[in-house]
């Protein structure tokens, strides 16, 4: 067991991409995150697990400042990407969000064509070059393993393709902006098993180019796709370790209870 962990450890990139330090988050008077500190390496997949309402999605959304949109949210502590504090005043949140792609629980393609969905991020950046946009769209769709299925219907409405395809389209849309981080909030929970498998395989290949953080309710999924796993409960980070260790030999009894299904 110990040896196995060592071998995995060697693969992990020593460079930290994402970090939070003593993060507290409040929805009005209610505290949703308590003193969360975590460091996530570049080009790894980190899974956040825990029961509903434990703060894992809230925490995920701190990394692209999506919580800013909710009224009454107060954040204390630091969130860093590439060692830069993203909640500092001088950070341009719109520029910053381009570096951090997000995929949501329910596929949410725009009511536009498949092509325009992927091109959206480029267009809002003021990109005018037609050939550059076309190349980037194709590239993003290929990376999202969707190109072969939609290459003949790029100008069809994105609402007309299946849910699994829509979710991969949303991934393509996110990576077309060339972020370095991908945040995924239960990306497969609304999909059928086959589509889920495809998304999981995709996450595996995307790891080479992106740092991926994924929130999931499905523990088998966390075990299959992630390098490291963080277990949250009641807004606290209970345990954060290599996935293998979390699922085979967790150090905290709370984690073990959750993993084994005795709770939650």
């Amino acid at each position: 067991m110990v040896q196995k962990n060592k071998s995995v450890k060697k693969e992990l990139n020593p460079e930290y991409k994402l970090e939070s330090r003593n993060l507290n988050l409040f929805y009005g008077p209610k505290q949703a995150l308590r003193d969360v500190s975590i460091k996530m390496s570049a080009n790894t997949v980190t899974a956040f697990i825990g029961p509903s309402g434990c703060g894992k999605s809230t925490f995920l959304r701190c990394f692209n400042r999506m919580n800013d949109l909710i009224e009454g949210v107060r954040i204390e502590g630091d969130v860093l990407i590439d060692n830069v504090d993203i909640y500092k005043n001088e950070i341009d949140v719109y520029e910053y969000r381009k570096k951090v792609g997000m995929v949501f629980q329910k596929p949410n393609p725009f009511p536009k064509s498949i092509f325009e969905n992927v091109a959206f991020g480029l267009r809002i950046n003021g990109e005018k070059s037609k050939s550059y946009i076309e190349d980037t769209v194709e590239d993003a769709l290929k990376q999202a393993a969707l190109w072969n299925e939609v290459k003949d219907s790029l100008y069809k409405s994105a609402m007309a393709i299946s849910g699994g395809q829509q979710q991969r389209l949303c991934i393509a849309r996110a990576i077309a902006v060339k972020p370095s981080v991908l945040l995924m909030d239960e990306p497969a929970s609304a999909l059928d098993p086959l589509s889920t498998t495809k998304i999981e395989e995709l996450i595996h290949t995307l790891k080479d180019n992106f740092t991926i953080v994924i929130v999931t309710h499905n523990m088998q999924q966390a075990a299959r796709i992630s390098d490291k796993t963080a277990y949250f409960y009641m807004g606290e980070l209970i345990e954060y370790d290599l996935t293998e260790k979390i699922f085979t030999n967790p150090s905290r009894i709370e984690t073990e209870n959750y993993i084994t299904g005795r709770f939650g």
Partner: protein
Amino acid sequence: MTRKPLFSVKLKDRIFRIYAMACTAFALLMLAILLIDISIKGATRINWSFFTNLPSRHPEESGIYTALAGMVALLLFTLIIALPIGILAGIYLQEYGTKNRLARFIEINISNLAGVPSVIYGILGLQVFVRMAGLGNSILAGSLTLSLLIMPIIIVSTREAIKAVPDSLRQAALGLGATKWQTIRRIVLPASFGGIMTGIILSTSRAIGETAPLIVVGALAYVPFIPEGPLDQYTSLPIQIFNWTSRPQAGFIINAAAGIIVLLLFTFILNGIAIYLRNKWYKKTNL
């Protein structure tokens, strides 16, 4: 012991269904009677000269040329004034405004304004635009008054259309680094275009039919010229109809019926366009 109900549930269901059908039939029947009556009376009068003649003392020579021109000019200025303000106000209230008590208070009051009797807008327009602003019996004064009248409708329908756009789309756009305005401009407005358009057209057909406020702000019954600028005097089709119906000669009653047919056609066409756009857009966005 349970008592047996007087009517069985099934019977109740049937009674209600028949009652609902009777109500619908009654409403449709009344409308049909009205339309048939108007058509029989007015159809004979509808010919090309009816559209091109000026108003006259002789009913058979009277036409709606100036009234139509006045109505189109009035609508044009009304829309130029009311659309930008109404739509932008709707966007602001729904997307930017904070949702506090003041906002709710404003929201309720705008909805109330949509229900205020139109003659009250007429009186307001008379005092503010005709007298204080010194616009007199001009098209501009009439347009400003009608703008006030339809603005609440446009604001409310714009808000409703924008509200119907799922939040997940806004989050997706913002997550890609779009600014608030980019999100509204490129995602929210296109997705709500059908709804906004419907509101605009319905408010336009409301403005077309309004008579009371125009009488108050001084649309004239007899205008032997077509307006050339916003400060000219004018008449409008509903005013013309209103005037004709109050004449004793039978010929003018026929003219009024013909005018009503034209006005109804205008309204039907506008409403038809609204329904078409709504269906087309809902199909396209498939929200």
